[in-house]
Each structure stands twice: as C-alpha cells, then as structure tokens.
C-alpha cells in the first residue's frame, strides 16, 4: 500500500511541473529542477526503487518505534527476512532474460521447472547417493534442458511464449507430482542441506543466509556480466528492441532467443536447489503451491523496470525490486500477524504489479524509453 502512493501521484505531477517550460523566471527555474527530479524518478528505475525502499523501511521503522508491530522491525529482522531473497531475485533475473528477448517473451513455467528439477535433485542427492556437487550440476543441466524445450518451441518453431510456457507449466508440474507419487523427499542427505539456509556472519554483527553468498551473488554477477558486458547481452537487447532490424544486421535472432529461454531454465534449476535446501526437503509443489513462483517473479521483473514489450531491463532494477518486495512482505507480517498478513501480501503483490506496469507504460510514453 505504501509503495503505490508515490506511483499514484506521478501522473498528476508533470502537468504542473513541465508547463512553464519557456518561461525563464524564478518559477521556471524551480519547476525545471522539479521536472528533472521527476524525470529521474520516472526514467531511472533504480532511483525510484531506492526512494520506494527508503519509504517502506522508514514507515516500518517508524511503526516499530511506536510499538505498532508485533515484533521490532530492526536490522536483525530485516537480515533474517533476506532468506526469501535468493529465489525471488534469481527467478526475476530469469524473467528478465526471457522478457527482454521480446516478441511477447514471458515464462510462466519457471515455478514448475523449480518443482520438477527439485524432485530430480532430491532423487539424485537424497536417494541415489550422488554427491552434492554432482547433484547440483545435474539440477542445473536438467533446468537448462527444461528451458531449452521452451526455447526450441518458441524460437525455432515460432510458438507464442505465453501459451507455450503455460502448457509446459502444466506438463512439468504434473511430472513433478507424479514422479514420486506426491511424496516429498526428505532423507538425511537432503535434510542436511539446511545449512545453506542458515545465517553466517559476514562483517561484524551482520549475518546473511549462506545461500545468498553461494547462489545469489554469483548468479547476479554472471547475469549482469552477460547482459551488460558481452556481445550476447547486446544481441539480447537488440532482438528485444526490434528483431527484424536485428535479423538484418546479421544477428542470429532464433539462437539468441533460444539461449534466453535456456538461461531462464538454468537459473530455475539453481533455484530448485536453493528452495530444497530452505525446506530441507524436495517437495513436488515447491514452485507451484498456491499461485506459484511465476507471479512474484514476473512482478519483480516488471517492478524492476523490465519492459514487457522487450529490449529494456537491468539487473540492478530487478535486485532492488526483489529487496523492496521482501522487506515490504516482512513488514506486513509484523503489522498484520497471522493469516490476514499473508493474505495482505497477495494484495500488495497484485497492486504493486499493476501499478508498476502502468508506470512503465507512462514513463515509456512520456520520455520514450526508460
């Protein structure tokens, strides 16, 4: 709720700020500063997200100081809440790759890939006695294969991404449930994985869950390097912006789009390991329970400034957006304890998604690209 307030005020603000543009008087100077700030907030998604983060944390700190919350919302609690960060950021990055590739790119099947890969990982590590490293490698390869299946259909056969990944969502989640007849795998080797979710001290007092250091940070770095610093990344933005022009400039559009979906699957495979460690159990509905993991992932990508039309999106935006959602959700749980709190999280996620999408459209139309 707090997050949507600045969004709402955005459409009305520009009319007053930008109209006296030709006038060079005192009012003109002030409004030029105002419109520059507004422009920065609307076009630089990172700026907006930092502002929103400050607002969310500030509001909850304030509530906490006045004893409105059921437990103190302090640095320790915020660090504890970060256990939910790795799956959200990583799946948000998976959506970043796919959505940025354009032509209606979207992946509804990420949650189902997490479920299915989690079961494969659980079988390998928990039942067949594979070593942890070998099982993680298997999970990554298996996730990439699932993503490659989507990618082959979409990129090489021309299937629409939305309906294709909806179909594979069905198929993968069904297989995940059937493979062990609905039984979760929680043998001792899988239970011991919980050490990945424990917090370890990093600098002085600050302790972070181990999975952030082992899985999240490397993934973020690799995705950032690939998208921002390699030719493959440039090609990804090129085909998302205009795939006809990209084709004519000699880019293998199909291969690039195929790799985007494969990358999303690979990341989802890694998320399966993280989620399995977090539950200390490989659950067949890990990525599909309730509304599944695809919705938060897409919400975070869109909130992070990834344009649903393709070609626009940055890693930093996705990371900040996930941080915002995690700390907002953590605060809601303290403000409204119990079942009502988790229901309110649903509402917040939906409102944030719609507001962020409307805002993306607005800033794109007003400034022609974010």
């Amino acid at each position: 709720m707090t997050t949507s307030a600045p969004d709402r005020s955005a459409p009305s603000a520009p009319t007053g700020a930008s109209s006296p543009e030709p006038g060079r008087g005192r009012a003109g100077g002030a409004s030029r500063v105002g419109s520059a700030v507004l422009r920065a907030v609307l076009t630089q998604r990172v700026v907006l997200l930092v502002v929103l983060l400050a607002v969310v944390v500030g509001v909850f700190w304030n509530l906490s100081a006045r004893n409105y919350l059921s437990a103190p919302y302090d640095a320790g609690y915020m660090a504890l809440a970060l256990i939910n960060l790795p799956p959200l950021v990583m799946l948000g990055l998976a959506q970043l790759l796919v959505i940025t590739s354009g032509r209606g790119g979207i992946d509804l099947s990420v949650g189902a890939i997490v479920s299915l890969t989690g079961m494969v990982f659980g079988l390998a590590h928990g039942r067949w006695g594979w070593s942890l490293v070998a099982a993680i490698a298997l999970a990554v390869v298996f996730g990439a294969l699932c993503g490659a299946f989507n990618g082959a259909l979409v990129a090489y056969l021309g299937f629409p991404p939305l309906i294709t990944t909806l179909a594979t969502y069905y198929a993968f989640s069904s297989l995940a449930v059937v493979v062990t007849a609905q039984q979760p795998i929680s043998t001792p080797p899988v239970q011991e994985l919980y050490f990945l979710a424990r917090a370890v001290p990093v600098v002085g007092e600050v302790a972070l869950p181990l999975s952030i250091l082992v899985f999240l940070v490397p993934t973020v770095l690799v995705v950032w390097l690939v998208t921002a610093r390699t030719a493959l990344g440039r090609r990804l933005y090129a085909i998302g912006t205009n795939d006809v022009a990209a084709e004519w400039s000699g880019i293998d559009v199909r291969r690039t789009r195929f790799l985007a979906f494969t990358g999303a699957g690979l990341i989802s495979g890694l998320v399966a390991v993280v989620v399995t460690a977090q539950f200390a159990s490989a659950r067949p509905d890990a990525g599909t329970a309730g509304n599944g993991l695809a919705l938060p992932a897409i919400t975070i990508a869109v909130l992070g400034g990834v344009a649903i039309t393709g070609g626009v999106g940055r890693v930093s935006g996705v990371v900040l957006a996930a941080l915002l959602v995690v700390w907002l959700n953590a605060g809601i749980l303290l403000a409204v304890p119990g079942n009502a709190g988790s229901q309110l999280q649903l509402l917040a996620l939906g409102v944030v998604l719609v507001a962020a999408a409307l805002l993306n459209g607005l800033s794109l139309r007003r400034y022609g690209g974010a």
Partner: protein
Amino acid sequence: MSVPSPARSRGREGASASSGRVLPFPVTGQELVLLGVIAALWLVLGLATPAFLTSGSLVPLLVSTAPIALVGLGVTVVIISGGIDVSVGSIVMVCAAVTATAMTAGDVPLVLALLLSVAVGGALGLVNGVLVAYGRVHAIIITFGTLNIFRYVGLQVFDGSTVDGIPATLAVFGRGEAGRTAGVPHSFLLVVILALAAWVALRHTAGGRHYYAIGGDAHAARLAGVAVRPRVLLAYVLTGLLTGLAACFVIAQGTSTLAPNVGLGLELSAIAAVVIGGTSITGGRGSVLGTVLGALLVQTVASGIIQLGWPSQLSSLFIGVFIIVAVGVDLLRQRGRSSS
C-alpha cells in the same frame, strides 16, 4: 497495442481474396478434428472401462464441463480481440464466495442469487476491462495482478473458513435428477444455448466482427472506425458476467460446503479449452463452438484418467501436450495460408 507483423496481415488479405468469401466456412476443420478426437477417446475409454459410457459417468462429465466451457466463451472473445484473462479463476472464487454466503446467511432466493453472482462477476470484469483498455498495458500483466487482488477479496469474504450449509436450490443446474432434461444436465444445456448465441453474435453482427478486426490489427481496426477501447472493455465485462454465472455452476457442482480453494487454476483449464478449440492465441481468429468442444476434451481426459486408475495429476500433463499440439496445428495452418 501490439504491432502486428506485416506478414500476417498480408496473409489474411490474400486468403480472403482468393476464397472470394467474406466469412469463413461455418464449421472449422479444427472443430471436426476435435469431434473425431473426442469420439475416439470416448470409444477407447468405453472399451477400457465399461463404466465410462454410462449416464452415471457421462452426466458428471457434462456437469463439470459446463463451468469451464462457460468461462471459456468469455475468454474466447477476449483472446480473439488479442488479449487474455488469467484472473477468471479468482473471479469464480469471489462470486462463489459472495453468492454462497448470501444464500446461507441471507436466505436469498435462487434468481436473486444468480443475479448477484453475475453482477459481482461483471463488476470485477469491469475492473479488468478499464485497466486493460485504458491503461495501455498488456492484458497478461493486468489480469495477473488482478488475479491476486481478487483472490485477496475472496479470502476476505471467506474469512478464514469454509461456507457451510448451502441450500440445495442450485441443484436445478444438474446435480440431482431434477437438474436434467432428457438426461442432459441443465447447466450444460444452458452453455450450449449461450454458445450458439455467442457464435451467431460473433459471426453475424457488426459488433462481433469488430473483435476479429481488433485482434487481427488493432490499429487498422481503429482507422476503419471501430471503437477499439469500448469494445475491448466490453469483452472483459462479458467475461466477468459469464464467469459469475459459471460460479453458480461451480457451487451447484459441489456439496453443501464451499472451500476457499474454489476456482484455483480454473483459468488454466479455460484457456486450454479455448486454445484446443482452435482459437488463435495471437488474436483475430477463433470460434466459441470449438471452445465448448475443447472444454469437453479437457474434462474427458481428466475423468478418463481417474477412471483408468492413473494418478489424477497426470491429466495436467496431457492437457499441456494437447495445448502444444493445438498451437502447432494452428501455426501450420497459418503458414499454409500465408504461403498460398
């Protein structure tokens, strides 16, 4: 506002010029193929499990097909216009919760309960419609968001428990003997009637043709004088109204208790029915009769798998495969048309 590829619009022009007919043939090839597939499935299932081809098995099949087909009718119109609505499952939940609560707490008569459910559905559809038509954001994002928002509203109505003691007045839709005419449940009859009406409206009225025009090329449709935004808005309201009615079928289908997980994932079945029925997910082409057949196929698979004693979750796998096959067939047909 997606920019349609030039190749596709050229292909459409060519097709209508070469055939020399404004309207396509009344029954599409996909519908005939579907009829064949359903007939073959029924035959195989009838041979494999003798109980399948009895009224004790077919009537529940038709009863469970009705709400999905009904929601599918609305979603068909939305998809033909180039959009999508994934929030229908949550709309079913809100409508069912409100209606069931009104029936148990307020002792509301049947007609009033129906009107209430349809009105609530229409109001939620209006929210979707306004945001999609005037927010200029793609429908998948908007309805993905409202999916959550509506679910929150529904959970508030349920208030953490189930709704118990729903009166049996809704049995008229097909659960008991009283709910059938000549062995066919009333809910399914109603769906067939509505589908025929929608089929005529989409094919033979200017308003119906506008949806195909918008889905084919929204920009061209606007230049040709189609009021694109009000039309799109209407499609989502229509979907909401039909989904409200479908919610009553869903209540009638169950026992006297309604649990908060009602409608969860129903949007997937509805979209699967639409796509399997031959409606192009990219918009501009499709038929509501195919959707009814698609819903029947989806439910036949679900019920067949249970009767064969296989794990019931396996039906999702088959539905996924069917969707991919249906989309593949549609793509082949599209390619054949644009090359000829």
